[in-house]
């Protein structure tokens, strides 16, 4: 009961389709600007925000630098506290572990805390194949699941939906999988939340097994941390008898006090709140209180691949706040589905290629899904230099094609440009040719640009991508270089 990103086209194609969805454009522009402004306001309140960013980056950097040691410490602490630790190399192994736990308790359903890692590994689909239904309990994830939809944002996966659409989904689908929406359902946010509460309550009370992720895993105390806004996560973490948490290995921090900068950075960056509403922490099993069987699945799934990348490694500092999505001018217009992954936006454009490599065309298109404007780096609470990693991943894409028998047109164009730019005499010659072309284009042009220059008219080939929507001035008949020569730098 959910869509799949498998088989998504490359970004430019998916983006073109999304750009034509007027409802999506309106929903996204409204939502991203609202969260963006909220974040900016609460970040401005913190005088030492820059120091806090540095502290957050340092905590994650220190943990990553000595990741193996911290993970072993985490395993010892968790085991001592009564949890069972599993190691999963990839998605398949992780899904199999969760399925086995569920099967060992004879259940055919689990409740889920919102979790990116389980989305990444396609856990719901894997469990469904085993005859186990996974119920999403985060409000936005519920909207996505009921709508047979795909998440389009890290923090608010149903950001592409407005309240009228949510009402329609609830009305149509809730009854198929549990308590139906009330007949008098309106699109008032409080009414919609009320319907979700009634619907989910049955599932919370019934479930024997819960599945979560974790925002942080504290090595020295063996504590997992879930940061959420609704309290639905806490229901899952406390009511069922069995709890399985799928945790990416990059979530580890060394000590409890390392949480300090992280828990101050995260809410302001993500929801634009000063403090997070529901922060749940648990260390293994506490007799008579909460789940009595606790499993932790430590997930690699490409993270050690990313860790081995000198430039890209910093992406593992990400705390999934979504600030980069909310400020991204590309994301704002095309939404999350075009990225073909549960990790959309600027962070997705670097994280997906780092985790999976750039062998497939869809992933290879992601580092180019950015104008390199740098707004993402500016807001990142852990100072991930996303533009630099994007450029580095573009180089990885280009390098992966260096052995191609037939080079791409772009590679030929770049090599030609580099050849011309490697000697000013060649460039001067090219400019003369362009000046001649300008004269010809100018003669056929019927457009004068504001200010008086002549436009080049519609051009064929790759240049059509430019002139399809934008006028282009015809090249001047004299380059700057020629002018300088002719006039001795304007002195004669």
């Amino acid at each position, binding site marked *: 009961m959910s869509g799949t990103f498998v088989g998504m086209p490359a970004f430019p194609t998916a*983006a073109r389709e999304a750009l034509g969805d007027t409802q999506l454009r309106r929903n996204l522009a409204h939502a991203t600007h609202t969260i963006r402004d909220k974040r900016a306001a609460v970040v401005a309140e913190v005088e030492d925000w820059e120091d806090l960013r540095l502290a957050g980056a340092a905590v994650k950097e220190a943990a990553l630098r000595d990741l193996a040691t911290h993970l072993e410490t985490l395993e010892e602490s968790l085991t001592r506290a009564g949890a069972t630790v599993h190691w999963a190399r990839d998605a398949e192994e992780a899904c199999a572990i969760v399925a086995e736990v569920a099967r060992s308790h004879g259940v055919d359903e689990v409740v889920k805390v919102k979790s990116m890692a389980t989305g990444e590994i396609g856990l719901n689909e894997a469990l469904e194949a085993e005859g186990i239904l996974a119920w999403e309990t985060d409000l936005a994830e519920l909207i996505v699941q009921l709508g047979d939809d795909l998440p389009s944002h890290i923090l608010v996966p149903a950001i592409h939906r407005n309240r009228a659409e949510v009402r329609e989904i609830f009305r149509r689908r809730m009854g198929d999988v549990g308590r139906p929406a009330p007949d008098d359902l309106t699109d008032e946010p409080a009414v919609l939340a009320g319907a979700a509460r009634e619907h989910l309550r049955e599932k919370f009370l019934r479930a024997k097994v819960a599945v979560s992720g974790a925002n942080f895993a504290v090595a020295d105390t063996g504590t997992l941390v879930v940061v959420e806004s609704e309290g639905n996560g806490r229901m899952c973490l406390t009511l069922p008898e069995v709890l399985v948490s799928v945790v990416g290995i990059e979530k580890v921090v060394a000590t409890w006090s390392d949480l300090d900068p992280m828990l101050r950075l995260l809410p302001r960056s993500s929801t634009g709140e000063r403090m997070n509403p529901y922060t749940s922490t648990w260390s293994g099993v506490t007799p008579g209180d909460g789940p009595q069987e606790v499993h932790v699945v430590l997930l690699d799934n490409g993270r050690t691949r990313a860790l081995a990348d000198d430039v890209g490694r910093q992406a593992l500092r990400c705390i999934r706040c979504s600030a980069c999505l909310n400020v991204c001018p590309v994301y704002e217009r095309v939404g999350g589905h075009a990225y073909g992954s549960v990790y959309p936006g600027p962070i997705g454009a670097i994280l997906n290629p780092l985790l999976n490599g750039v062998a497939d065309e869809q992933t290879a298109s992601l580092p180019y899904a950015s104008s390199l404007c740098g707004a993402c780096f500016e807001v990142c609470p852990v100072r991930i230099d996303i533009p630099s990693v994007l450029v580095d991943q573009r180089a990885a894409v280009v390098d992966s094609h260096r052995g191609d028998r037939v080079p791409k047109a772009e590679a030929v164009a770049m090599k030609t440009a580099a050849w011309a*730019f490697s000697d000013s005499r060649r460039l001067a010659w090219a400019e003369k040719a362009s000046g001649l072309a300008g004269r010809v284009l100018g003669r056929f042009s019927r457009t004068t640009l504001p200010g008086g220059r002549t436009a080049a008219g519609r051009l064929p080939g790759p240049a059509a991508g430019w002139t399809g929507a934008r006028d282009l001035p015809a090249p001047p008949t004299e380059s700057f270089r020629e002018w300088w020569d002719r006039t001795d730098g304007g002195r004669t």
Partner: protein
Amino acid sequence: MRVALQVTCVNDAMFPDTGKAVVRLLRRLGVEVDFPQAQTCCGQPMVNTGYLDEAVPVVRTFVDAFAGYDAIVTPSGSCAGSARHQHSIVADRSGDPALVAAVAETGPRTYELSEFLVDVLGVTDVGAYFPHRVTYHPTCHSLRMLGVGDRPTRLLEAVRGIELVDLPNATECCGFGGTFALKNADTSIAMGADKARHVRDTGAEVLVAGDNSCLMHVGGLLSRQRAGVRVMHLAEVLASTEENDA
């Protein structure tokens, strides 16, 4: 002080008037610039598309052309950003210690025009006259890669006759992005359309920025819309005087 003009490949081939304006402006302020004829391009088109090996000879040409100058002035935030922040990446890739050393010399000496005027020459009133309603778009690389801050607007505010109006959502990218404008043309145009709308909302007759590549994009959209707004490089506004109106 030996000052070189890095006119940029885009200005050299497409917008020579911007280069001429820089020469005229600096001459008026008592600075004679050289134009090292060996210069070509900063290499950014290759770097930002992922062609790092191809960028190596281009960056080598850059450092050879500008070796020995105390300051390299460029009318482009993007190209200054490339020299200051990306040449080291290319040099590291080349594995050539001489190139690594050379970019460490030229990078920090490269100034975007407004930085050179305000920080090196210490002027904000350059004696310009431009009696038009103007709005200013801070280009992303000048704003976030270089951190030019309010230098361009301080320069514009000191221009006599100018009516400077704020651009809504000014700091949002116009959507040019180099090869992004072609590889993701639809998204680029969608971003540019919103920028053009904000420009039109100001009622300005002239949109000013410090990068002609961004202006070529937004200006191309405005022109196609017959919006009645022209685009001009900051240098051309600052070079304008009563005697020599742009």
